[in-house]
């Protein structure tokens, strides 16, 4: 944000053409709010908005968003079926949003959503990190 505001980097909003949906990771939102009293809902959206105008929230979002299903170390366990079941909600949300690119700022979510898109047979769904989207939109002078 700081970079963008201060102009240290410049972003091109036209580089990404597909419909983008933003996923709130638990750690950035609810848990951050519980632990540190502040939830990062606005900032990532602000950044994303600088990258592309064509983005939406997954519904529900923010405080009541659904977890990707990979958190809490669940990705590290052998409980794959459960993990898959859990993610049905996220997949529904993604389908509902109609987006083909899911932007996440969290590694865990990134992995989980990517894996689940495959499991649920959604090969057209791309998953990118927020900074990846920023990097993709960078104007290199």
């Amino acid at each position, binding site marked *: 944000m700081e970079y963008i505001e201060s102009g240290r980097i410049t972003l091109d909003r036209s580089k990404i053409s597909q419909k983008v949906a933003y996923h709130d990771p638990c750690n950035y939102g609810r*848990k951050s709010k519980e632990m540190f009293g502040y939830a990062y809902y606005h900032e990532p959206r602000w950044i994303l908005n600088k990258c592309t105008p064509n983005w939406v929230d997954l519904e529900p979002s923010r405080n009541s968003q659904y977890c990707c299903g990979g*958190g809490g170390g669940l990705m*590290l366990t052998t409980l794959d079926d459960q993990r898959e079941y859990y993610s049905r909600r996220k997949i529904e949300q993604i389908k509902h949003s109609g987006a083909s690119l899911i932007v996440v700022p969290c590694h865990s979510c990134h992995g989980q959503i990517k894996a689940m898109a495959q499991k649920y047979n959604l090969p057209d769904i791309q998953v990118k990190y927020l900074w*990846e989207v920023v990097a993709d939109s960078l104007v290199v002078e």
Partner: protein
Amino acid sequence: MTENASSLIKHTALMRPDGHAADFCLGCGTCAAGCPMTGIDGFDPRKIVRMAMLGRDEQLAASSLPWLCTLCGRCENACPMGINIVGLIRSARGLTEKDKTPTAIRKGLEMLLETGNILGLPEEDFGFIITDVAEELNEQPGFEDFTVPLEKKDARLLCTLHNKLVNIQNEDLIHWWKIFHLADESWTLPARNWEGVNWGLFSGEDQVLKVAVDNIVQNMERLDARHLMYPE
């Protein structure tokens, strides 16, 4: 069975200033209604809270319930009584006997304690991977002069890494390096104990949690960095 009088975990109100002990539970089921995992293998946050209230620590620790949770916090965010459900589940995980914690986590934690990262990656291997990826980036226009400031002192920003980026998806490192580069950021990456992921959070073992945090603090001190960047 007759119930025990006291529980080790039901008073878990830690980490959150406004958190309440499990005792406050009204049994309203808001938590369960918000949890996508409810019903899977008998999972239900309300039940876990209840077991804690009744002092059934061992039963809870011996079950798979605590490990089904993604710790996403959707439950406690809505809990009208402000019960620290996530904290409670973490505590329950902490009570799990070592050999019953999921293998991957167990190993990762052991590695973390041993090597400062969950992969158990030696320092020189890490350095190699980083240099390798940086060279990849150098091939892109505009980034020819990019280098990774490993172990740079006095940087504004100390970065830690998600082990995934080092392990299987190291091409994803490029994205933020690009940003730093273009923004001309003063940053550094520690060569040791670069692990930014803290599985102690998952296992409920606070002592591990602390080791991991200590590692980072030491890095900060060692490199005199002013800010810290976490992968998450």
